[in-house]
C-alpha cells in the first residue's frame, strides 16, 4: 500500500460524504415539489392539469434516461457556470443533483400514490385548499415512505459519486479509480469498496430504524 494512504482514505470518506449528503439534500429540496406537482396534476389528482403533468413528466423521463457518465460530461459547461469549476468534489455535486432530482421526483410520486384516496377525499370534504392538502395531508401521511425513498436515494447518489472519480471528481470513487484501477493497487481498491459498502450499510440501517420509529401505522 502506498504511503500516506490512511490520510488519503480519511479525506476520501469526507469528500464522498460531503458530495453525497449535499447532493441528496438539495435534490430533495427540488425533487419533493416536483414529485408533488407530477402527482397532483395527474388525471385523478387534486389539481388536474394535463399540460403541466405532461411537461414535467417528459423532462423527468428524458433526464432519467441519460446514462450518468454521459450526463456528467455533457453538462460540464453548466457546472462551470454554477460553481466556477468542473473538477473536484463541489463540481461533482452539480451533475449529481441533475441526475438525482428526476429519480427522486418519481420516488416521491410513488410514495404519494400509496396514500389512500379516501383520506384525500376526506380532507377535501373538510374544506382544505390544495396547498393545505399537500402540506398537512400528503407529505405527513407519506413521510415514512418518503424516508425509505431517502435511504434508497442516498445509496444511489453515493454510487454515482464514485463514478465521478473518472472525470476528476473527488472522494472514495476517485481513490479507487486512481490507485486501484490505473496503478493496480488492488488492496486500495478493496479497502475503498469496503468503505463504500460500510457507509451504505450504516445509512440504510439507521434510515430504516428511523422510519419504524416515525411510522404510526405500526404498533
Amino acid at each position, binding site marked *: 500500500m502506498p504511503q500516506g494512504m490512511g490520510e488519503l482514505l480519511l479525506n476520501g470518506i469526507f469528500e464522498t460524504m460531503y458530495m453525497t449528503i449535499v447532493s441528496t439534500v438539495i435534490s430533495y429540496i427540488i425533487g419533493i415539489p416536483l414529485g408533488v406537482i407530477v402527482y397532483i396534476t395527474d388525471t385523478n389528482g387534486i389539481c388536474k392539469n394535463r399540460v403541466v403533468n405532461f411537461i414535467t413528466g417528459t423532462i423527468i423521463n428524458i433526464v432519467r434516461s441519460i446514462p450518468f457518465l454521459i450526463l456528467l460530461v455533457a453538462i460540464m459547461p453548466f457546472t462551470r457556470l454554477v460553481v466556477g469549476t468542473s473538477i473536484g468534489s463541489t463540481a461533482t455535486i452539480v451533475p449529481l443533483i441533475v441526475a438525482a432530482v428526476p429519480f427522486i421526483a418519481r420516488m416521491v410520486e410513488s410514495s404519494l400514490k400509496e396514500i389512500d384516496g379516501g*383520506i384525500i377525499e376526506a380532507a*377535501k370534504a373538510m*374544506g*382544505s385548499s390544495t396547498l*393545505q392538502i399537500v402540506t*398537512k395531508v400528503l407529505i405527513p401521511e407519506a413521510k415514512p415512505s418518503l424516508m425509505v425513498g431517502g435511504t434508497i436515494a442516498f445509496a444511489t447518489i453515493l454510487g454515482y459519486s464514485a463514478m465521478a472519480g473518472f472525470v476528476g471528481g473527488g472522494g472514495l470513487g476517485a481513490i479507487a479509480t486512481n490507485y486501484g484501477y490505473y496503478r493496480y493497487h488492488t488492496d486500495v481498491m478493496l479497502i475503498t469498496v469496503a468503505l463504500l459498502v460500510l457507509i451504505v450499510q450504516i445509512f440504510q440501517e439507521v434510515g430504516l430504524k428511523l422510519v419504524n420509529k416515525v411510522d*404510526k*401505522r405500526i404498533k
Partner: protein
Amino acid sequence: MIRFDNVSKKFNTKSGEVVAANHVNLQIEDGEIFGIIGFSGAGKSTLVRHINLLEYPTEGSIYIDDVDITKVSNKELRRYRQKIGMIFQQFNLLEQRNVTGNIMYPLEIAGVKKTEAKKRVEELLHIVGMEDKAAAYPSQLSGGQKQRVAIARALATNPDVLLCDEATSALDPITTRSILELLKDINKKLNVTIVVITHEMKVVEQICDRVAVMSAGNIEEIGTVREVFMNPKSETARKLIIPEETNLVSHTDRDVLRIVFDGQSAFEPIVSSLTIECQTMVNILGANTENIGGKAYGQMLIELPGDPDKVQKIKDYLDRQGIHYERGR
C-alpha cells in the same frame, strides 16, 4: 335545507356513458335524518357527494339554504364544506396523526386558535365517548372507535349537516347499533341534519325520519320510513325490505301475504289466533320481527291457502285486528 334541483350526473367510462344521477329532485329539511337506500351501484354515494360538491353535477343545481352552491367561488365552497361534516365507510382518518391530531385537523383548516381548538377537541372527545383515547393512533383503534373519532372530526367545526356514507357498513351489528345511537343523539342534541347512505333497511328503520329509495341513478320513491316500510311502491324498495335470501317466496306457487307489524303487542299470539279463528293452516315463509319495549315491529310472509273463501277470512281477521297487510308478491 338542502335541495337538489333536476340534478344529473353522467360519467364517461370505457364501457360507455354511465348515468349516476338522473334528473334528481329532492329536498332534505333542516334537522331531519334522511336516508338514501339502494343496492351497490345505485348512485347513492355519487348523489350525496353533490351536497359538498366532491362531485359536480353534469346538469342541474344544488341549493343549500337557497344558495346555488354550484355557482359559488372556490373559496366560498371551502367555507361551505367546513359547515358540512362527512364520515365514511373506511373512516379515512389521518394515519400519522393521533386522535387529537385528527380532530384538530378541520379546526386548523378553519383557522381556529390553538388554545381554543384544544378545548373544542376535549368537548368533542366527550361527545363521542373517546376521552381515554386522545393520544392513540388510528392503527391502535377498533373500527367502532375509529368511526367515533371520525364523527368527532366531522363535528369539529359545528356543521349544520352531517353526511354519512355507508358509515356502519364495515362494522359489526352491535357496534353499528351504538354508532347509530350516537348519530341519533347528535341529531337531537346538536340539531344537525343527517344524511345517511346505506344498503341496509335496518339502518334506515333505526334512525331515519324519511327515506329515498334509489336505483340506477333514479329516485324511485320518497316517504317517511313508516310509509315506505308499510307500503313499498317500487320494486327496489320491496327487494330491500324483503331480501330474497331470507324467505321462501320463490319456492311456492301460491299467493303470498306480507303482514306488517307496527307496534302491536308482542305478547299476542297473532298467527296462532289466526289459524284458530279462520280454521286454516298458514305457512310462514319468512319473518323478521323485533320486540321493542313489548311491541312488535317487523314483517312476516305467509303463504295463502288456495281457497279464496279462506283467504278472505284471513284478510277479514287481520282487518279486525288492525294489522296491516299487502300482497307479498
